[in-house]
């Protein structure tokens, strides 16, 4: 680990992943005092209250990966954190499955928490992902932008 570049471990996942196994495996390799984590799972109901059967997560291949790398590089430098772990689902996601796992390790709690929060927001606004909800009744709807923070 050098002082100017954080260690970034970023990936898109085509299939369901186990966020706790990934996090444990990654965090136990860090030597930092502070780790902040965000874990997002697919809701079983839409914002309108409809029961959901699944979600299709479309992305712009290669631009999406490039954006994630750029955003993580920028935020990890801005907050001087040591390591970032990111997993983001694409493809068909079922209710209860993990959508996003973001973990940030840093020497201090403030840097870890701020970086985790700001990187998550920047991903939500700058990485080309699109969610399409498929209701239990079989209808489809593209999610229009992000829910407010």
């Amino acid at each position: 680990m050098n002082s100017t570049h954080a260690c970034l471990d970023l990936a898109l996942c085509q299939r369901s992943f186990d966020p706790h196994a990934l996090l444990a495996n990654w965090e136990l390799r860090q030597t930092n005092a502070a780790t902040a984590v965000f874990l997002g799972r697919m809701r079983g109901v839409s914002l309108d209250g409809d029961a959901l059967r699944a979600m299709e997560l479309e992305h712009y291949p290669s631009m999406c990966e490039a954006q994630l790398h750029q955003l993580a590089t920028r935020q990890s430098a801005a907050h001087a954190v040591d390591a970032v772990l990111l997993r983001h689902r694409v493809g068909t996601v079922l209710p209860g499955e993990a959508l996003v796992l973001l973990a940030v390790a840093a020497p201090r709690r403030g840097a870890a928490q701020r970086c985790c929060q700001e990187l998550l927001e920047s991903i939500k606004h700058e990485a080309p992902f699109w969610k399409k909800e498929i209701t239990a009744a079989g209808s489809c709807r593209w999610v229009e932008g992000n829910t407010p923070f």
Partner: protein
Amino acid sequence: MQPLATTINVRLFAALREQAGWGCRTMPLMGPSTPLQCWRELELGGEHLPVGIRVAINQRFVAADTTLQAGDELAFLPPISGG
């Protein structure tokens, strides 16, 4: 001597792709052109880029009046919703 015919690739995603009925198309580049001009030419919806639609050239966000180059990959992105 005429220059060789040049093209760009245009990509649409999510709701835009479904509305247009296509996700990827090659179009000729006739002289200087911009994403906004392509949007009109492809009849993707109105004379102006709708609020919330973003433009990427070669997988980087750019302004809608950026000048296109032969071989560019132009993409129109509806409001994103990740995380």
